[in-house]
């Protein structure tokens, strides 16, 4: 789809809040990386502050870190993930660091408030 020349050029973060635009793979992966980073820190902090523990928290995290971003790009951005090589191609380099951030915030807040 050709862009009209009169359309203003949006920054990456402005694009992230507009539906049905054209995306390049590197742009989408950047936005998803930061989204997962913020999501992981938030989930870890909430679980740590609430003092929740155990395997169910890990399961909830790993399921939601895949489901939430893919719902965002499918339902909100209107992207077909097959155009970018599939869900794992988009998430691949974000999940490892996201999991580390989740663990760090979860362990940190739990240690601070509940021990």
């Amino acid at each position: 789809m050709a862009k009209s020349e009169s359309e203003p050029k949006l920054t990456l973060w402005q694009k992230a809040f507009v539906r049905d635009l054209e995306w390049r793979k590197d742009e989408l992966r950047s936005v998803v990386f930061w989204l997962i980073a913020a999501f992981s820190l938030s989930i870890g902090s909430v679980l740590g502050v609430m003092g929740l523990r155990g395997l169910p928290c890990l399961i909830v995290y790993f399921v939601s870190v895949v489901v939430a971003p893919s719902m965002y790009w499918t339902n909100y951005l209107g992207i077909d993930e097959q155009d970018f090589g599939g869900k794992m191609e988009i998430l691949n380099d974000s999940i490892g660091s996201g999991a580390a951030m989740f663990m760090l915030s979860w362990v940190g807040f739990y240690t601070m408030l509940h021990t």
Partner: protein
Amino acid sequence: MSDFVAVVVLSLLSSALTEALSYGLVYRTEAFQRLKAKVIQTEARLEEEKNAVSGSGKHRQRRIDGLETQLADARRSASSLQMRATLVVGLVQMAAIYAVGTRFSGRVVATLPFEPARMFRSLTHRGLPEDSPVSACSATFVFVLGGLAFKAIIDRYLQLGLPKGSSLPSWVADPEAAITGKK
């Protein structure tokens, strides 16, 4: 808690140092900058070709194949340049992990909100007494987690290295095409 914060800060500093080393040894060199520009340019042309609707299938496919070969060659050359940084960075990280482990040896810096699997206990309990509780966490584990997190953030924020290409092998990203041989 202060030990936990100290280890996280050390982890951040260590990640920043390794990124600075990579920049000094590789990223700022002319050769790497040239290869990086070539990778960016080739990826943009490849995406244009893949999205183009005009042109005959066979000729377009040949151009796509040519561009993919160029891209793979440029990435391979850049990776070989990065090897020298990888060695130095690896040694620095090992030294940092050893130093942190020694400095905080025997001290529980955090409490894990879960029971770690047996295969991870050698990491979560590194340097701790044998009788420490299962949920006790060593400085080494926190340092490694911090390293993973901060390295990725610094790398993504500064974008000094190569652009992240297709990270999965083609047979994982598109198994059907790999089996049928169709593109």
